[in-house]
């Protein structure tokens, strides 16, 4: 039956195709486009009272900076605007914005009442003459106005790109001061854009590799407080910290939370051999995942918690491996030249970011979780320790310059390899870890 129908249909198609080519609508296929930032206009948000004027102006600037910082948007500055937005509720004169080729328009208003600030905004698709999504309002404290600006920008970003935002997020990192031979390190936390830096530890002991918990309320890190590296956990809210793993005669490092936030995977060095273990935070039970004479370290969970990617030198040099989260047979995924380390699974689940060292240069790269489609995004004297933005679209990492006066600082790069830009921090920075989007 199916064969008869298929052959009849094939015959009918062959017979009718010359006719069909001339009938129906004109068909065109577009395969080449342009890659350029999308021009947008964000006229100053309308202050609902004179007291809100300065806040309105600051909010608008942060929103514009968030969007342009992605490399996907280009702001058309106010001096080029033809139209003015003086009333948030007034209809949009699209022709004014089409004339300056603004493809997206963001309008908003800011009201301040006591220490409460209210932000309302709308996003417009200028050439379609329609609103993108619907109007939204955020209410918060005046102190948190930056977060409100980030939330507005996240909404705009999400409505235009179709992806989750990442502006309302924080980064914990190691702040570094002093020369290379006498570097002082302490944990610091900041907004994703480098604002609002706060220090979580003092610089009395060396701290390394801080990692956010899935909810962003805790930070795991490695401290040399006892003279040997051991894992600590720190509560971000009250800056209380405690030692998590300090067995006698061992060293523990490279911790990372599982997506459930209840388990920690880390490396434990015992008798000269380093293997991967998990620690259940509730029970304190420790489980061994690997048992090899080689060094296994830098574990990172897949977003579904089912697998772990880690680095190991079991093949002779440092390569990346994936194994089930409960341990078991590991599958090598990196096969290129050079050494691979510090793998991090993307929050989207589709990629793994890593540090690669080859021919005396360091790279930040990404590959599919099966090791295919490896792409190197950066190259420098020393790039290392990538961390994913909450939307899996951007990577932040540390770059150190050459020489005795070399300084480590933070950079971000889009996974397309475009838009490499420094993240401004008061001092040097290394080992960044990006938080999830704040609630």
């Amino acid at each position, binding site marked *: 039956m199916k064969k008869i129908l298929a052959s009849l249909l094939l015959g009918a198609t062959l017979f009718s195709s010359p006719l069909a080519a001339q009938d129906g609508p004109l068909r065109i296929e577009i395969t080449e486009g342009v890659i350029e930032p999308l021009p947008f206009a964000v006229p100053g948000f309308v202050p609902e009272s004179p007291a809100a004027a300065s806040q309105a102006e600051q909010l608008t600037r942060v929103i514009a900076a968030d969007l342009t910082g992605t490399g996907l948007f280009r702001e058309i500055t106010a001096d080029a605007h033809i139209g003015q937005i003086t009333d948030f509720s007034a209809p949009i004169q699209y022709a004014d914005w089409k004339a300056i080729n603004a*493809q997206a328009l963001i309008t908003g208003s800011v009201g301040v009442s006591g220490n409460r600030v209210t932000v309302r905004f709308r996003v417009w698709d200028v050439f379609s003459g329609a609103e993108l999504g619907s109007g939204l309002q955020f209410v918060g404290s005046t102190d948190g106005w930056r977060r409100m600006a980030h939330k507005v920008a996240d909404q705009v970003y999400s409505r235009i790109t179709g992806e989750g935002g990442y502006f309302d997020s924080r980064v914990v990192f190691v702040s570094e001061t002093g020369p290379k031979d006498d570097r002082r390190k302490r944990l610091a936390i900041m907004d994703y854009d480098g604002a609002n830096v706060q220090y979580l530890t003092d610089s009395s002991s060396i701290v390394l590799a801080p990692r956010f918990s899935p909810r962003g309320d805790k930070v795991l890190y490695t401290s040399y407080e006892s003279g040997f590296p051991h894992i600590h956990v720190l509560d971000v809210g009250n800056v209380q910290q405690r030692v998590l793993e300090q067995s006698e005669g061992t060293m523990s490092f490279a911790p990372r939370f599982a997506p459930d936030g209840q388990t920690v995977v880390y490396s434990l060095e015992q008798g000269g051999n380093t293997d991967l273990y998990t620690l259940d935070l509730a029970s304190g039970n420790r489980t061994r995942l690997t048992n090899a004479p080689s060094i296994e370290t830098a574990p990172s969970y897949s977003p579904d918690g089912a697998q772990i990617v880690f680095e190991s030198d079991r093949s002779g040099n440092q390569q990346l491996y994936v194994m089930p989260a409960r341990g078991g047979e590991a599958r090598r995924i990196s096969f290129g030249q050079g050494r691979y380390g510090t793998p991090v699974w993307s929050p989207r689940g589709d990629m793994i970011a890593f540090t690669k060292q080859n021919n005396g240069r360091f790279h930040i790269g990404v590959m599919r979780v099966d090791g295919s489609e490896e792409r190197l995004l950066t190259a420098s004297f020393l790039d290392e320790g990538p961390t994913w933005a909450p939307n899996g679209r951007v990577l932040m990492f540390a770059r150190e310059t050459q020489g005795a006066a070399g300084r480590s600082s933070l950079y971000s790069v889009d996974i397309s390899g475009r838009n490499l830009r420094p993240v401004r921090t008061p001092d040097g920075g290394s080992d960044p870890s990006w938080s999830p989007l704040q609630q």
Partner: protein
Amino acid sequence: MQTGTKISGIAHLGLIAIAIFGGAFRSEPLPFEVREVSVISSEEYAALSNPSRPPEIAEQPTAPSEPEPAEPVAETPTPVARPERDPVPPEPEPVPEPDAPEPALPPEDAATPDVDRVAPEPVPTPPQDARPDVVEQTEVAPEEGADIPQEAQQATAPEQATDRIVTEAVETAPIRSPRPPRTRPTAPTPTPVAQAEPTSEPEPEPAPDRSTAVDAALAEALAGPAAEPDAPVGPPLSAGEKEALRVAVSQCWNVDVGGRSSQVVVTVGMSLDQSGKVVGNSVRLIDSQGGNDQSVQTAYQAARRAILRCQKDGYDLPAEKYAQWRDIEMTFNPERMRIK
């Protein structure tokens, strides 16, 4: 006498002497190749050069020779002589049928057997068991217990042949177009079949479903395009005109190569007015491949922006072909731009 005249005289005399007596000094004759040549009659030559000519055309038809004895004969007759030009392979002698009247030309509309071989006389299809041969003979099987032993003999028969070469023009030129009429074929009326008493066996798939599906597919394919009332008329757009439209839209299609929308192919439909401008709200998503709802929506919005932004005062399209570009379906395929 002058010296020159003497020399000339002597030389001439010498030459004459060689001419007369030269034969005495000739060496052995050079060897030469001898070929035997058979002489054939003009009739034989004519028969060779035009073997397929029907015998009745000849003024003096040659008397049919006696049938050869029923002995195994050579598969191919030896040619009598090899003519200088590339010879036409000699046909075997016509099968002698002494009693048969001269083949009359078949009537114009006579059905011609569909056979490959052309012979002076048409030969019917041989029996299946018969081995092809120029001479027909019956099968002889050794009879058990016979007094006189008989030699086994396989049945042979002449190959099937026709006396005319039917050209393609004569044979296949259709009188009417083979294309079926552009009308919806009437569904065959299902003949009521006398059903046996219902049994416990599972019923077969109902036949009407099949015919309906086939009919619908056929009818759509055959009658569909012709039945479409809004089919554009006039000449189609040239490749250059299409390319210009493609380039115009491409310039405004901004692809977010790192985004998930770059995994999506969307097809967007639109209608244009006569000035080449997009009719308000006519842009619509027709089809998409890949990605989730969110990324499809993003890809569609990017495509819509490209179409609307680059139209400016209307796409530059030939006004006289408006019917051809009034409705457009544009597919935006970012595959070549995607980062690998």
